[in-house]
């Protein structure tokens, strides 16, 4: 998956308009980043990357880039 495809996947997951996110965006600044978004993020890692990401790990994420770094 390319970098842009990863951003688009996160936009789809967070119900954010396409091509509006970049790696520097802070998660706290996104109103869509809530408890439901955390669950859909865990589901995405599970189904797309076969990775089990715990909520403690997600709490450490500060920016979109932190999520993308794990998307491999």
């Amino acid at each position, binding site marked *: 998956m390319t970098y842009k495809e990863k951003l688009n996947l996160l936009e789809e997951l967070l*119900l954010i308009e396409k091509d509006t996110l970049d790696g520097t965006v802070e998660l706290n600044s996104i109103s869509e980043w809530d*408890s*439901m978004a*955390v*669950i*859909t993020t*865990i*589901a995405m890692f*599970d*189904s797309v990357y076969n990775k*089990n*990401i*715990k*909520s403690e790990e*997600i709490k450490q994420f500060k920016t979109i880039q932190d999520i993308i770094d794990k998307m491999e």
Partner: protein
Amino acid sequence: MANGILKNVEIKGIACAVPDHLVNNEDFFGVFGEESVQKFINMTGVKTRRVAIDEQCASDLCYVAAKKLMERLNWEASTIDALIFITQTPDYAVPATACVMQHRLGLSDECIAFDINLGCSAYVYGLWQAATMISTQNINRVLLLVGDTSNFGINPNDSATAMIFGDGGTATALEKTEGKDIKYFLKTKGSGYKYIMVPAGHARSRSQTIVDKSEYELSMNGADIFNFTITDVQKSLADFMAENSIGKNDVDMYVFHQANLFIIKHLTKKLGIPIEKVPISIDRYGNTSGESIPLTLVDALGSEQSDDTIKLLLCGFGVGLSYGAIYLEMKKSACIPMIYTNYYFDGVDKK
């Protein structure tokens, strides 16, 4: 893990009673905002819920279900050997609600009656307990009552819990029957006991003189519960099916605890199960705690008249963390139609 086969036991009937009072989650637009509520509905699947009025307890709903079921099966009260009541919203701190129910239902003084405190996994644990008694003891008939009024003790301003739960009470009749078996596995992951919790109100915090009101309310860690479901529950269920040679064609219906539509869909996909075999009730009844599995069965099969058998895989998972599954066959006609009621106990039960 705890697994095995319990022989010579069958479910003869299942009934479910839910409150008349219908709550539409769109009514929360003014509390949490339309966009936020719509997002919640889309993810959890909960559009409407049945919510008990203040006077109505889980025991009242179970009472209505049990009465109807005993009438349908022509079970005389004196023929019931044991009553098991599973709830997290008992009538009183003391005594066990099962004892009150033994009296209210007019069961014999020879009857065993006790409570079990479990939530999401209540039904599979209850079936195992009832089946164990019938299979290994001189017990012929067991009435298993599972119900909760989970909306009791919910913070109406907490969007995570205010719109998710529905209330209900169920009754399941099990009887000794030659040649009918129940396969099961049961597990516990107590390290996650804080994931769904009401911290105050019982012995642990009794010495605290000042307790924050929120400590009496249910708190839920959705992310970690989701993680538990897609890892521990999914793997254990897949192992259970493999170890017992239960192929996908050996199951007519997979009935999962109605935790949240997103969780059910994800679990279904991971297990490679056709979604058509997974009945859903959470959209109209909400997350109905321990009674969600029998409620979903009644919702799906309540109008069935056929005496054909149906092969069921039932899986409960959640608070505790506690989980397990049951594989069994029963008649399609075992479930009776959903009962809607505003009944509550005012000190005098009509016999």
